[in-house]
């Protein structure tokens, strides 16, 4: 078995040098780590011929913090706040992933109320994340106004979180054994208000950007990802669903109370930027449906079934659990030794890492401006890639 490893240095050799003095020469540009499109610190090396992209070489790792290694010396409860800092726009879902794996390993029972609250929070965050993504996409494509509208709605949902959780970004809310606090007394009313507010707002989003011919032309048939390619690259979430594969863990894997609610998996028809765009728009509507079905009937029960200071005993073995975050499948692979409550190794399967590499398959042949649309439609969160 041979493995060929090409270093970045080798990749940065132009594939041809001009034979004729008038022939065009390929050149490389760095898109990032300091670039408005990188939304953080992502470096993309573009091999360009004029404005046509020949190759994209992603160079992640600028915000690598060694979270997985750090987790080896932390107890399960201490790992949860670290997962907030991976994909910070899906903090609840990340918490839930590690919570699920720990609960499976340690055999911790949870109850209806806990699961309903977790589901509600995750769906609210999905709406929030997609709203923000919509704004950022608008900004990437030049419509700055959309960016602030997206942030405005994010703020509204953040206030709900702030009231119940006490934090706006790094939640640490969903913990092994339950949730940190019971929902705030105002929670149900506020969520209903916000859902009523969000519905016309999403139509407004459609009016401002989806209905805009410039955005449609920028997205239509750009960066087509075939379903086979998407599966082979391990893309998940809206990126995979836009390619027409209805792979949604909320349906595929019974977790939370998703089996009790009625919602549709949103898929795209072609797999281009437009589909990736619209899948998220429609997912916001579906998430609102889920929230509205659950909000009236939150069952009674304790919100924490485990005493906090008791160690969580995990018998020896390997455990894997995954949840559907706003960007795809976030999984936690845990090996327990059975000796201590700390995981032996812990590996996070982050959706953005796999989604990022799809850009290598998507981008060649398109223009520099299309890279923007493609990257924007992948909805990358860089700390999740680098971990």
């Amino acid at each position, binding site marked *: *078995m041979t493995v060929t490893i090409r270093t970045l240095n080798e990749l940065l050799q132009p594939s041809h040098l001009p034979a004729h003095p008038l022939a065009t020469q390929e050149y490389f540009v760095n898109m990032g780590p300091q670039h408005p499109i990188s939304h953080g610190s992502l470096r993309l090396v573009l091999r360009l011929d004029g404005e046509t992209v020949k190759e994209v070489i992603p160079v992640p790792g600028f915000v690598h913090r060694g979270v997985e290694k750090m987790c080896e010396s932390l107890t399960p409860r201490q790992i949860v706040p670290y997962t907030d800092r991976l994909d910070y726009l899906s903090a609840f879902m990340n918490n839930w992933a590690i919570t699920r794996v720990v609960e*499976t*390993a340690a055999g911790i029972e949870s109850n209806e109320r806990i699961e309903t609250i977790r589901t509600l929070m995750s769906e609210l965050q999905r709406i929030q994340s997609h709203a923000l993504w919509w704004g950022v996409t608008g900004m990437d494509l030049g419509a700055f106004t959309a960016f602030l509208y997206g942030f405005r709605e994010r703020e509204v949902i953040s206030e709900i979180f702030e009231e119940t959780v006490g934090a706006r970004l790094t939640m640490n809310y969903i913990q092994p054994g339950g949730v940190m606090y019971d929902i705030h007394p105002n929670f149900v009313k506020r969520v209903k208000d916000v859902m009523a507010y969000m519905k016309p707002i999403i139509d407004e989003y459609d009016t401002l950007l989806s209905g805009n011919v410039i955005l449609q032309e920028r997205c239509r048939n750009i960066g087509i990802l075939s379903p086979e390619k998407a*599966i*082979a690259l*391990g893309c998940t979430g809206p990126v995979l669903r836009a390619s027409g*594969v209805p*792979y949604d863990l909320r349906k*595929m894997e019974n977790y939370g109370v998703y089996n009790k609610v009625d919602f549709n998996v949103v898929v795209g028809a072609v797999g281009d930027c437009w589909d990736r765009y619209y899948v998220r728009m429609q997912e916001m509507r579906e998430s609102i449906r889920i929230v509205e079905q659950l909000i009236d009937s939150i069952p009674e029960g304790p919100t924490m079934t485990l005493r906090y200071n008791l160690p969580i005993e995990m*018998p*020896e*073995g*390997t*455990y*894997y659990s*995954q949840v559907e975050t706003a960007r795809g*499948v976030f*999984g936690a*692979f845990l*090996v327990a030794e059975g000796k201590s409550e700390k995981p*032996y*190794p812990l*590996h996070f*399967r982050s959706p953005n890492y796999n989604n990022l590499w799809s850009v290598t398959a998507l981008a060649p042949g398109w223009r520099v401006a299309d890279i923007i649309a493609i990257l924007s439609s992948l909805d990358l969160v860089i700390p999740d890639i680098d971990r």
Partner: protein
Amino acid sequence: MDSEELLDIVERIESGATKREKSDRPAVHVPVDRLLSAMRRLRNYQWLSFDMLVTHTAIDWPDDNRFELVYLLYSTVHGHLLERPQ
């Protein structure tokens, strides 16, 4: 499909596979020299068709002077999640 069935299938297509104990998912060990062919067959056999590599990672066991590569495979056709430490 549980771990035993999977082991049967993998044993049939690749010799030397053993069942992995203490895993919450169907999992088999495959010797490293059989890895590539086993992976190919797991992907290409119609009734397996593990077409998505969900994640792969490694577990280091310095006491035994070895490390395991873990591949988590998923079949979008059949809906199996397979953990294949080897």
